[in-house]
């Protein structure tokens, strides 16, 4: 019974050299497909804003800005989950400080590009000379949500610059703090894109603040539980570290 069940799930996999070759070709093809997919999904989300007529949204920088933002916060999330899984499953010998160092460098680069994107937004608002655009940037820095905006700049632009220091890049605690701050900062960025523009559009009679209701808060907090549940199920049912790739690594390291 078990043989039939697992045997049919294996779909004829016998560990033949041909099977391995096909697996690797498929692996490479799917990874090559994933990046254009990320780019297209987030560009379209950015275009949805850019195609509007609102100040703060109608910007040609939005598609690449959203792609970089998605990669940036995604990397912070992956970093945080890696730290947790490494701690929870005792994978210190598999996930090393070298890996963290490399991830930290990519996050540092992401931070620089995000900062550049913000600066482009401010510059273009000033340079275009549009009253509403200039007004909106002033509102972002000094208006009702200014505190959140400064916190965003601290989390996304300023604090990750500590990753220039090698001891910080190699400290798991420091990286966890930075990852959480980036996640908070990127969350703030996304709500502030909505809040600032909708609270300060062309029509002063429509200027009003957003007040989150119970539904908003539960929609924010609830998915944490769903995600944690699915993620824990995933690491319980599926090997978190690819065993065959570890065997390959052992062979390479052994013969080198």
């Amino acid at each position, binding site marked *: 019974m078990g043989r039939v069940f697992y045997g049919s799930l294996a779909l004829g996999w*016998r*560990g*033949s*050299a*041909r099977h*391995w*070759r*096909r*697996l*690797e070709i498929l692996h490479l093809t799917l990874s090559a497909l994933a990046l254009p997919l990320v780019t*297209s999904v987030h560009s*379209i989300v950015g*275009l949805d804003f850019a195609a509007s007529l609102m100040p703060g949204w109608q910007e040609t920088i939005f598609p690449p800005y959203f792609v970089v933002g998605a990669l940036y916060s995604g990397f912070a999330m992956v970093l945080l989950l890696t730290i947790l899984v490494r701690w929870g499953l005792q994978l210190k010998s598999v996930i090393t400080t070298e890996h963290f160092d490399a991830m930290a460098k990519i996050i540092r680069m992401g931070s620089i590009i995000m900062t550049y994107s913000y600066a482009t937004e401010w510059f273009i608002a000033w340079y275009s000379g549009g009253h509403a655009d200039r007004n909106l940037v002033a509102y972002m820095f000094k208006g009702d949500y200014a505190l959140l905006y400064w916190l965003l700049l601290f989390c996304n632009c300023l604090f990750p610059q500590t990753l220039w220091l090698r001891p910080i890049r190699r400290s798991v605690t420091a990286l966890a703090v930075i990852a959480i701050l980036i996640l908070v900062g990127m969350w703030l960025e996304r709500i502030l894109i909505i809040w600032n523009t909708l609270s300060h559009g062309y029509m002063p009679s429509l200027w009003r603040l957003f007040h989150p209701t119970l539904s908003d808060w539960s929609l924010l907090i609830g998915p944490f539980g769903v995600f944690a549940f699915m993620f824990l199920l995933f690491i319980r049912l599926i090997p978190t570290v690819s065993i*065959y*790739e570890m*065997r*390959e690594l052992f*062979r390479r390291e052994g*013969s080198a």
Partner: protein
Amino acid sequence: MTFPYLAEFADADTLVRATLRINSAGYQPIDAFTPFPVHELSGLLDMEPSRIRWAMLIGGLSLAAFAYGLQWWSAAYAYPLNVGGAPPEQLAHVSACPV
């Protein structure tokens, strides 16, 4: 009469060396089973491309055509949008693009 031989090796390097020697002796190795990918083997064994490739290509192309057709049909006939008086059959090609 020919006999197939089955041999077991302690590690991957011995397996690769043995396959090389069998090849240079003029025999054709049939298959090799390993617990992880051994890249040296792919040149030594006779590897014809998988037949699944054609099925994947045809499946992928027809699904893409179907998805595009569905979007075009919904924007042109099922729920035609009037944007600036443009003919919906042509406008639908534009709205089906960015996906």
